[in-house]
């Protein structure tokens, strides 16, 4: 186990290095350059521009910039071009919101995906199965921003419910419970939209996996034992079917973080997706560098966790 972790850690470090170099190259070798003074400010003197470029090492060769940026990242001295605050601190402020959103999205995706997938598999080949599969493809085919937009229009036009951000404003909450519900409401809408694709993917995955599992010999054994359908299904088949699902969780994360750029923009949700998007627009290189690095680390961590979970679910797998 320890061996496994160490080896995985080693591979992760190499991967991270690779990722950080590539993303750094993409970021710095492209046209445009950071400019923190707003639109064509007549008041900015050439000297200020020079000071600024020197401060953020913008005139160094890329490898030196890379080195300085990474050094800054690890010593915590890397600061954002926009407001000169340490990027780690900025990311730290936004990361919890994004994680919360993604965790809820993953929960929704998994629970609904599981339910739908199992439902379809139970009726494999029959009408409910077909309908479920079509619904799943509908979910995948729905453009995220479009459905988010429609939901938003609907809510704005027909209800009083606020939809943006993480909480309602200008309102005194009578109690903690109401406050909790308010937070949940603001979290659940974007999370649901974000999860739609995940629900569908998981449902199709589970369905296929279940159908495959139902053909296995041990399921026949279980049926031959006279076990009730449900026990056969939920105990013998399901447990074996969700193994691939668990490995999939690690892979969900990058997709969700990508998707959250749009969702966070539409719902004005304060997460790192939006920060990254703004950093791209502002050419805030340090922030981009740090963000890519941290997101990649998170993804690698997610992969590691799914590997460990995999071993927990399947006794045949040992982490070596």
């Amino acid at each position: 186990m320890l061996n496994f972790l160490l080896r995985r850690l080693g591979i992760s470090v190499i991967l991270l290095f690779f990722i950080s170099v590539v993303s750094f190259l993409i970021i710095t070798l492209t046209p445009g350059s950071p400019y923190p003074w707003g639109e064509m400010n007549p008041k900015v003197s050439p000297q200020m521009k020079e000071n600024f470029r020197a401060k953020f090492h913008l005139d160094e060769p890329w490898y030196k910039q890379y080195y300085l940026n990474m050094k800054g990242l690890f010593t915590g001295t890397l600061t954002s071009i926009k407001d000169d605050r340490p990027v780690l601190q900025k990311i730290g402020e936004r990361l919890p919101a994004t994680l919360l959103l993604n965790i809820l999205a993953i929960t929704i995706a998994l629970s609904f995906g599981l339910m739908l997938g199992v439902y379809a598999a139970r009726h494999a080949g029959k009408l409910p199965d077909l309908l479920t599969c079509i619904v799943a493809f509908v979910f995948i085919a729905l453009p995220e921003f479009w459905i988010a937009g429609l939901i938003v229009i609907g809510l704005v036009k027909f209800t009083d419910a606020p939809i943006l951000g993480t909480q309602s404003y200008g309102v005194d909450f009578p109690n903690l419970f109401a406050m909790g519900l308010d937070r949940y409401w603001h979290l659940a809408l974007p999370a649901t939209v974000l999860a739609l694709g995940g629900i569908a993917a998981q449902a199709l995955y589970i369905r296929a996996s279940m159908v495959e599992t139902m053909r296995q010999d041990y399921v026949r054994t279980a049926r031959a034992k006279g076990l009730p359908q449900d026990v056969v299904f939920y105990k013998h088949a399901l447990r074996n079917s969700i193994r691939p699902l668990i490995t999939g969780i690690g892979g969900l994360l990058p997709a969700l973080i990508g998707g959250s750029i749009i969702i966070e923009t539409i719902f004005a949700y304060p997460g790192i997706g939006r920060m990254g998007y703004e950093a791209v627009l502002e050419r805030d290189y340090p922030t981009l560098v740090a963000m890519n690095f941290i997101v990649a680390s998170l993804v690698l961590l997610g992969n590691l966790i799914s590997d460990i979970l995999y071993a927990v679910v399947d006794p045949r797998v040992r982490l070596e």
Partner: protein
Amino acid sequence: MITDTDNPVLQEAQLIESPARGVWRRFLRNKVGVVAGIFIVLFFLTALATGLGSLGGIYYPYNPNTTSLEIKLQPPSLAHWAGTDNLGRDVFSRLLNGSYISLTVGFVAVSVSLLLGVVVGAISGFFGGWVDNIIMRVVDAILCFPTFFLILTAVALLGPSIINIIVVIGLVSWTGTARLVRAEFLTLREAEYVRAARSLGAKAPALVFRHILPNALAPIIVTAVISIPGAILTEASLSFLGFGVQPPQATWGNIITDGKTYLLDAWWLIVFPGATIFVAALSFYLAGDALRQAAETRSERK
């Protein structure tokens, strides 16, 4: 399904028919798949007609790029089936016109990704060993990137031209194909007929192109079909953020971008293009899935 899979009668029936025809026949039996396929054909014809139309033909109800401010932001009517946009352009005509670029983005991006994926996957799977190991680690690394963010960064920084968008989408989405092709190659490499061919002294290219690739074709095609809507959706998402194909060239995505501002006042600018993207994507997914089922039945019997 518990059956005796080696039923002799079945085997005989199997022998009469070429695999491709079998897949096709099974596909035709899938009603959902056929309907989806018809939609795809319709989209294609539209794209073709408007593609030709942009060379001077007259296949639109209105010129998709002509502005007429007197009729801006009009709701759908008999004259303008999908309403008009903020510059008074006919949205329906723009949708027709957009199908050309949107489908091009979908197809070409997927072709790029397919080409890369097949080549890389084939090399990895065919040679195995350390080559495979290195390539797969690289693939792992690429999978760690939040893809959409990567695309966004690249397109934002390189400039949102059609070519850039296509290339970038293609470049980041080949990993899935590569993994699939690699897996197929790893399996087929050890298949008896390949071993046989190898032992008869067949050279690597012959092995790959005559023996392995044709047999891996079915899953590759299915992946391609299922990837197309992904590329179209990605372009639309980029458009939504302002980094898609730039106006005045219409795409399904940037019609929505144009309409985004009017979200609450001109629903038709959002609903119709969104629905078009949705129907197109759904058609590709369903047709792709039907194709997969048809192809799988064959490989199951193999």
